[in-house]
């Protein structure tokens, strides 16, 4: 197995057209979707995330890289479905009720999806009933809650209290500008991340433990 350098670099640069060309060429050359995804594409998106953590890349680079990657995944998806390839796990994400901010949520969703997980994006202004419905009916392993405002952050506790009270087993991770580890501890959430890259790390950590 080998990394396709042009594909890796095209994701780093966010060049969607070249990503599509490279993926198509790799498929035509007989490489498996799994090999293309996990040898070239996922390492590229992880590299962007690491650059972000080091302050060398910024939100726009992460978004454009994830967008380019998704263009390649769209080509691979039918082949992966045909081969019976399963996602690494199922994650749901939403911005809590009263809060309309979605940049952070979208970024986390794209990073997690790009790393091979199935992501259900519940959108913004999500009430507790919708989170509950999703966890109960979609077999979600990890639920991620986002809030940007101090005025909406307390709703995370409402969601955590309600879902834990129902005895639902999924892990609840929280994030957003005003959120802290102390707040996470205070409301009994299972994890907190200050940025999208670390959020992906939390998800990966959870699934590694679970397996």
């Amino acid at each position, binding site marked *: 197995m080998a990394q396709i350098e042009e594909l890796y670099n095209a994701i780093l640069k*966010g060049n969607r057209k070249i990503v599509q060309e490279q993926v198509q060429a790799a498929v035509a050359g007989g490489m498996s979707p799994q090999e293309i995804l996990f040898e070239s594409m996922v390492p590229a998106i992880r590299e962007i995330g690491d650059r972000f953590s080091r302050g*060398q*890349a*910024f*939100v*726009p*680079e992460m*978004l*454009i890289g994830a*967008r380019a990657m998704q263009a390649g995944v769209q080509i691979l998806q039918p082949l992966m479905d045909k081969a019976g390839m399963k996602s690494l796990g199922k994650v749901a994400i939403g911005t809590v009720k009263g809060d*309309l901010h979605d*940049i952070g949520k*979208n970024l986390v969703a794209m990073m997690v999806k790009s790393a091979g997980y199935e992501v259900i994006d519940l*959108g*913004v*202004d999500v009430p507790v009933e919708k989170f509950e419905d999703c966890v109960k009916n979609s077999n979600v392993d990890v639920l991620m809650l986002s809030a940007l*405002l*101090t*005025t909406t952050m*307390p709703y995370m506790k409402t969601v955590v209290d309600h879902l834990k009270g129902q005895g639902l087993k999924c892990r609840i991770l929280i994030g957003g*500008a*005003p959120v*802290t580890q*102390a*707040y996470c501890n205070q409301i009994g959430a299972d994890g907190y991340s200050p940025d999208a890259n670390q959020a992906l790390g939390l998800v990966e950590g959870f699934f590694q433990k679970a397996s």
Partner: protein
Amino acid sequence: MDNAFYLDLAGKHGGMPVGTDLVLHEQPDPQAVKMDGGRLGAVIVEAASRYRTPVAMPLMDLMLEKRHMLRLLGIPEDQIPTWHFPDVPTAGARARIREGLTAALDPQLQAHVDSISHVARTTSLHAVGMSIGPFSLATKLLGDPITPVYLSGMGMTANDEPDVARLDAVLELAFQTVMRSLEAQIAAGAQSIFIAEPAGNKVFFSPNQLEAGADIFERYVIQWNRRIAERLRAAGVHLLFHCCGELVDPMVQAYGRLGASLISLGSSRDLVHDAGLLPENIVLYGNLPSKKFYSDELISADEVRLQSAGLRSRMRACGHPFILGTECDVLSVPGCEAQLKAKLEAIVNT
């Protein structure tokens, strides 16, 4: 424009937190107050009195102009907060907005304008208007505003990329809507106008692209705010420019060239450093971390006092005109009102 008013204020005034939302939420019916210019004006006057400032800061509602624009398109009220342009606005939609902007204001925006009028007519306070900045308004009208900015920075144009075309068209409409709001506020007697452009920051604009020479920050943020600044100058109204997002130095310098009387920055900035980036006649305002004020664990009232004294002392030492304040308006958080009020009092009394 002569900046004597704010320079004088910086010379003699203590802290000046933006606490209008806290006073609003002490009312039994805050939503009804937001629809009534007289009552909203009274809230603004009460906030100025409580925080002992001659500057009457209005409510910072950054949804007003979006609501006004989308009502012109007939978007249902319950969809307005999350509604985005799915495509490049059609010629018909653009014409409908332009035409609508010459007619009456949306009731809530009218109440905002009336509240400024109330302050200007009935008090000797310095009446301040408020609007979201054009780029920040455009970001609220698009599902993904970041990607087209980046693509534009890569050299793609509206002809190459539909996303860029949509951003360009929506930004033009956003500017026209903001100007309509500003004209009404100027006519109502605003002596200063606070332009909140929180999206003009490094989440939306990659510092890597700016460093490589992309002109996206100029094209998408600065040129529109320059036109606003010119209009305000012509009307004899002070520009108070606000961006609480994370910035790199060239962004702060670009804001400094707008000719604002006062610049308000977020707590991620070191104001002593920024003083060196800005002309000496621009008053710096801020920048205590008010987004953490809801929690005593994150910051106590004593720490607010310490930070207030420390920041004031450092700014005095650097000699740049400065007014101590909050990094943004202080939002009322249910259950945390006492903590919030104690911290605003700490600013005023330090």
